[in-house]
């Protein structure tokens, strides 16, 4: 869980939950594997077909703004993405991602290029860009968030502790 590796898919600033899980597929929300076939479709039409397990979504500012739909981080995870890296995240998306066990990493993504091979160590807060031959560090998540993520999401956390134990 704490060591991730894959290829970078680069997106712009302001990727909203409407880009990630468009409203025209609202009727697929109870069929997540089908909905996942449309993940990020309005930002990049072929993403769901091309993405490989372990790959990273790399974006700019305010990733995941908009609706509270948890289906957005859920289908990113279902598509096999190992983590989302962005300069900043919208609040609800960030919390949803942690709750469902999708790592979200805040760092300056400006120098990461499309297709770069990345390795991420979540606990040490380190990213290695093997293609660009550089290393970046990031602030690990807050203790509360790490505890939830470490347990595999909020549901697993509560099942394990019988309570919210932060």
């Amino acid at each position, binding site marked *: 869980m704490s060591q991730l590796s894959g290829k970078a898919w680069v997106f712009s600033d302001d990727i909203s939950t409407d880009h990630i899980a468009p409203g025209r597929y*609202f009727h697929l929300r109870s069929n997540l594997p089908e909905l996942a076939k449309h993940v990020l479709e309005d930002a990049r039409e072929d993403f769901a077909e091309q993405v490989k397990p372990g790959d990273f979504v790399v974006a700019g500012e305010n990733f995941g703004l908009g609706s509270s*739909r948890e289906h957005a981080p859920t289908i990113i995870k279902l598509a096999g993405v190992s983590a989302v890296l962005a300069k900043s995240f919208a609040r*609800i998306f960030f919390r949803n991602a942690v709750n469902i066990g999708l790592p979200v990493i805040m760092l300056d993504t400006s120098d990461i290029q499309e297709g770069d091979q990345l390795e991420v160590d979540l606990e040490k807060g380190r990213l290695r860009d093997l293609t660009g031959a550089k290393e970046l560090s990031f602030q690990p998540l807050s203790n509360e968030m790490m505890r939830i993520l470490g347990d595999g999401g909020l549901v697993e956390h509560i099942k394990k502790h019988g309570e919210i134990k932060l």
Partner: protein
Amino acid sequence: MSDRPQTLAEKILSAKYGRRAQAGETVVAEVDLAFAQDGTGPLAIRQIDALGLEGVAKPEATIFFFDHASPSPRKELSDDHRFMRAFSEKTGANVSEVGRGICHQLVAEHYAEPGMLIVGGDSHTCTAGALGAFATGVGSTDVAVAMALGRTWFRVPESFRVELTGSFSKGVYAKDLILHLIGDIGAAGATYKALEFSGQLESLDMESRLTVSNMAVEAGAKAGLFPADEITLDYLKGRGRGGKKLGPDPNASYEKQLEYDLEKIQPTVSKPHTVDNTALAQDLSDVKIDQVFIGTCTNGRIGDLQAAAGILNGRKTAAGVRLLVGPASREVYLQAEKLGLLRIFVESGGMILPPGCGPCVGVHQGALGSGEVVLATQNRNFKGRMGNPEGFIYLASPATAAASALAGKITDPREVLS
């Protein structure tokens, strides 16, 4: 624990935590109302089941609102409704049926009170901040936990104080203020923070405050709070509910201070594809429109419909413009009927939609054609939102929307108000 003066956000979260808490702390707090809508409810129920807990902690304070697919356009969504009805029957939770209205409007009409802690599986849950409740939007898992345990965890946010002075000039409304504010501070300008409004608040009636609080999340905020004052108590009293005055302590500390003179606000429009991409309506008169939508949790209340009808009365919409009007709740619908507003809309060339979220979320009704332009009174204009990534969404007040429907292009409503 220090006894330094508290913001309204700190005050409410402390009360629900049972101890004084300050910005930056993490608290596990008792929730007074937990709700979801038909887009987030089914997943919330599956997460409650995944927790292995039987039912919900406070059935009377747990509600599933059917508003996004109201009425349902597809069998999959009808089955989601059945799934939520069955869960509610089993657990004693409440269902707010198709046709009753939009969750945030109904929370204001029937449930929210000053000092409450409300979580909703919908980002615009912050609407109830207008009544002095700490109300915030969360995802399905968070709302599932709040429903199952009756409490959940919060990071107490820092607050921005937004000081308002003066009053709106003719043709200018709360929507123009909040669009202007978001354009000013940006779509991430208040991420993780609470916006706390203060100053000359008698200039904003309850409906105006609901519009402002509704859009706090469009600046990234966790909550948009008004103190509970005479206006709040009158509104609650008029609806047979109670409540006490509630505000921040004098000298509470705020991360930032913003000031707006309402006299200086002008009719404002958000251009595609972000809410903070604002301009003055008067500078967009070359933008032709195909559709106008008046309604939603932002601007589907009776005052909104009155403002629009006042402009449309006795006039016809421009050729080639489709006008859709959706009252935010059944109660608003009936009021509009009683006041003769529905007739005005229909005679001007418009059509009335059932109470619900309608075209705003792209689920059904009023989907845009490729390349088409809509002027809508909702809160979001993201690419693809109204059912088509090739559509262009502009946001404005109901008055601007009505004036624009008459002209067939974006129009400053002051041009048609004598």
